[in-house]
């Protein structure tokens, strides 16, 4: 299941959805939240822009790549767009597999690719009212290197 949406999601509902087959032995979930502090400044709000159409296509491609590399029984990717505030949920990635190794790897792989390839952009509003577009982090590019196939 892939969804780009303005409304919030519920951890329990997404977990139960992933859990609905008896052959599942492992479920790994990742949830990304709006942090209150970024590079020392207090964040009050966040707005998320995306590229409708490409976003969904891109997320689907990333999940497809994960399925080719690991044994995945079910997966979910939800990414919110629009206006968010501190502690709000931004993104959910869940993977259900027979064994934990597949679930951990696929979940982290999906997040690492989403972070560098999926067309979302964050704009932060600081407590002093200033707004700024979030800069891409070098560590996100580096995170991809662990998925290189020799």
């Amino acid at each position, binding site marked *: 299941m892939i969804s780009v949406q303005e409304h919030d999601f519920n951890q329990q509902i997404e977990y139960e959805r992933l859990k609905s087959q008896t052959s599942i032995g492992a479920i790994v979930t990742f949830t*990304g939240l709006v942090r209150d502090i970024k590079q020392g400044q207090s964040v009050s709000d966040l707005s*998320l*822009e*995306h*590229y409708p*159409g*490409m976003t969904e*296509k*891109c997320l689907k491609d990333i999940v497809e790549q994960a399925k080719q590399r690991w044994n995945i029984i079910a997966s979910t990717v939800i*990414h919110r767009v629009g206006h968010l505030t501190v502690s709000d949920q*931004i*993104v959910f990635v869940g993977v259900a597999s027979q064994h934990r190794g597949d679930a951990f790897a696929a979940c982290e792989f999906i*997040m690492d690719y*989403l*972070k*560098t*390839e*999926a*067309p*979302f*952009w*964050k*704009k932060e509003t600081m407590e002093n009212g200033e707004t700024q*577009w*979030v*800069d*891409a*982090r070098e560590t996100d590019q580096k995170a991809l290197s662990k998925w290189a196939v020799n």
Partner: protein
Amino acid sequence: MIKVLFFAKLSEQLGCRELQVNAELVQDTEQLFAYLNEQNNQWPAILKAQTWLKAVNQNMTADNVKLNDGDEVAYFPPVTGG
């Protein structure tokens, strides 16, 4: 026509989210980028200020891609979702 989209910081700086370019004026994305630089005297500085990412028909690419009528080309900053 070729549909050109700008997103996030780039769209704000250019003051433009979307424009249409006559497909007969540009053969490929290199020519499209040159064409965009001529549309407004503020734009060259913005377009050259950093390396913007490019997607042709919603696929990210760093190559110079041949363009046809009906294609969609988007320019945007490095992504920061998740």
